[in-house]
C-alpha cells in the first residue's frame, strides 16, 4: 500500500505544483493566454490575479489530495485504486482548467482598461535571420546512444536466447507481481519495436524544438534571442536524456528475464525512480527557464539596461484572436507547425495546420494500437 501512496504522491503533487505556478513562468507579455504590455506585468492587479489562481489551485488541489490518499488507504482492490488514481489526476487537472478560465475572464476585463491597452503601441514581429545557425539544439549525434542501446539489447537477447524463459514479463502490479506475460519470440520483436517507435517520437520532439517558430521580444531583442537559444538547447537535452532513460528501461525489462537475481520488485522500483526523475527534472527545468527562456539571466546585461529597453513602445504583436481559450493556436495563415505555448512551458501545435493535426492524431492512434496489440499478443 505504501507504494501505491508513494506513486500517487510523486505524480499528483508535481502536477499540482506546476499547475499552480504556471502564471509565474509565462512570458512577461502574456498572462492567462492574453497578450499584455510589458510594463503591465508588474501591476498589482495582475499579481493578485496570479496569487489568487495559485492559492485556489493549491487549496482545492490539496483537499482533493487528502481525499484521495484516504481513499487509497481504505481501498484494497488494485482495479479500484487505478480508477481512483486516474480520477484524482483528471479532477486535479479539471480544477486547474476552471481556475485558469476564471483568471482569463478577469484578464479580459483588465485588457479594456488604459493600463493594459495595446492600441497605442506599434506592433511588430522581429526575427533573427541567423538564429538557426546558432547552437540551439544539443548535437544530434547523441541519438546514436539510442541505437547502441537498442542494438546491444537485441544482440544480447539473441545470444542468450536459450537462457531466456519461455515467457517474459510485460506488466507488473504495484505489489511487484507480474500480471501479464509475453512469449519470448513475440517479446524479442515487440520490445525493440517499442524502443524504435519511442526513439522516433523523441527524435521528432527534438526536431520540433529546432523547427518551432521564433518568438522574440522586440523590446529586448538581443536578450530574448539568447534566452530562447538556451531555452531550446536545455529542453533538447531533457528530451534526449528522457528518451535514453526510457529506452534503457525497456532494455532492463528484457535483461530481467535472463538475470534471475533481479526480482520483479526491483523492476517496479526502477520504473518509479525513472518516473520521479523525469517529472521532477521537468519542473526544475521549467522554473529555471520559464516559457521561452524568459527567466534565464543573461550575463553581461545589467538590470538598468534592461529597464531602459523595456520602456520601448514597440511590443510583440497581439495575436489573441488566434489563441482559442488562450491555449489552442489556430492560425490558417501561419505556415508554422509548432509554436510556444501561451500558458505553460513548452510547445504546442498550430491546429489549423493539416500536417500538425495529422501528427497529433497519428501519435494518439498509434499509441492506442500499440497498447491493444501488446495486451493481446501472447
Amino acid at each position, binding site marked *: 500500500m505504501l507504494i501505491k501512496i508513494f506513486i500517487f504522491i510523486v505524480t499528483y503533487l508535481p502536477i499540482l505544483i506546476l499547475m499552480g505556478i504556471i502564471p509565474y513562468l509565462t512570458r512577461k507579455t502574456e498572462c492567462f493566454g492574453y497578450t499584455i504590455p510589458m510594463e503591465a506585468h508588474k501591476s498589482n492587479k495582475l499579481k493578485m490575479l496570479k496569487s489568487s489562481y495559485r492559492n485556489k489551485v493549491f487549496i482545492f488541489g490539496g483537499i482533493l489530495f487528502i481525499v484521495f490518499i484516504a481513499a487509497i488507504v481504505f481501498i484494497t482492490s488494485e482495479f479500484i485504486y487505478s480508477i481512483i488514481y486516474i480520477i484524482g489526476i483528471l479532477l486535479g487537472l479539471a480544477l486547474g482548467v476552471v481556475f485558469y478560465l476564471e483568471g482569463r475572464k478577469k484578464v479580459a476585463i483588465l485588457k479594456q482598461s488604459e493600463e493594459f491597452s495595446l492600441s497605442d503601441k506599434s*506592433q511588430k514581429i522581429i*526575427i533573427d*535571420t541567423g538564429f538557426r545557425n546558432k547552437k540551439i539544439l544539443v548535437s544530434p549525434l547523441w541519438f546514436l546512444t539510442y541505437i547502441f542501446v537498442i542494438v546491444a539489447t537485441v544482440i544480447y537477447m539473441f545470444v542468450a536466447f536459450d537462457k531466456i524463459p519461455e515467457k517474459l514479463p510485460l506488466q507488473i502490479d504495484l505489489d511487484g507481481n507480474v500480471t501479464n506475460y509475453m512469449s519470448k519470440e513475440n517479446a524479442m520483436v515487440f520490445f525493440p519495436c517499442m524502443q524504435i517507435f519511442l526513439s522516433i517520437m523523441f527524435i521528432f520532439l527534438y526536431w520540433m524544438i529546432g523547427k518551432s517558430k521564433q518568438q522574440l521580444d522586440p523590446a529586448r531583442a538581443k536578450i530574448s534571442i539568447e534566452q530562447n537559444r538556451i531555452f531550446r538547447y536545455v529542453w533538447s537535452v531533457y528530451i534526449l536524456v528522457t528518451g535514453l532513460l526510457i529506452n534503457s528501461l525497456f532494455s532492463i525489462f528484457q535483461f530481467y528475464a535472463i538475470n534471475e537475481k533481479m526480482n520483479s520488485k526491483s523492476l517496479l522500483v526502477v520504473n518509479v525512480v525513472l518516473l520521479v526523475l523525469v517529472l521532477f527534472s521537468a519542473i526544475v527545468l521549467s522554473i529555471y527557464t520559464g516559457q521561452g527562456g524568459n527567466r534565464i539571466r543573461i550575463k553581461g546585461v545589467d538590470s538598468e539596461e534592461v529597464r531602459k529597453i523595456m520602456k520601448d513602445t514597440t511590443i510583440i504583436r497581439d495575436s489573441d484572436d488566434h489563441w482559442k481559450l488562450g491555449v489552442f493556436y489556430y492560425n490558417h495563415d*501561419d505556415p508554422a507547425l509548432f509554436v510556444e505555448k501561451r500558458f505553460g512551458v513548452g510547445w504546442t501545435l498550430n491546429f489549423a495546420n493539416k500536417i500538425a493535426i495529422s501528427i497529433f492524431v497519428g501519435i494518439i492512434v498509434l499509441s492506442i494500437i500499440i497498447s491493444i496489440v501488446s495486451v493481446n499478443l501472447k
Partner: protein
Amino acid sequence: MILNLDFESEIPIYQQLRSQIIEGIAMKKLKPGETLPSVRQMASDIGINMHTVNKTYTLLKQDGFITVHRQKGVTVNKMNKSMLTDEYLSRLKQNLRILIAEAACRGVNKDNFTETSLEIFSYLKKGE
C-alpha cells in the same frame, strides 16, 4: 541580423523584408556567403504566407543580392560592380526624381537634401 516587421505599416511586408535585407547587406550585418532561412522557415518564423517570402526572395535573386540553391539554401552574394547596370541607374534616377520633386515642393533645398543623403551614407557605411 534582426529583421523588424511592422504589420500595421502601409509598406507591404515583402517590401519591408526586401528593404531590410538590402540594408543589412549594405551595412555588412549580412555578410557574403551568410545563409538566410529557407522560404518555408522564414515564413513560419514571421507567421506569414510562403508566397510573400517567395516574392521577396525572387526579387532579391533577380537583382543579384542572393542566390537560392536547391540544396545549400539561400546565401548572400558578394556585392560586385556587375550589379551596377544601366537599367539600375535609370531606375535609381526615376526613384530619386520622385523623392526630390516632393522634397522640393515641401521646401527642402538642395543642400539639406545632399546633407541628409550623406548622413545616410555614412550611417550605412558605419554598420552596427
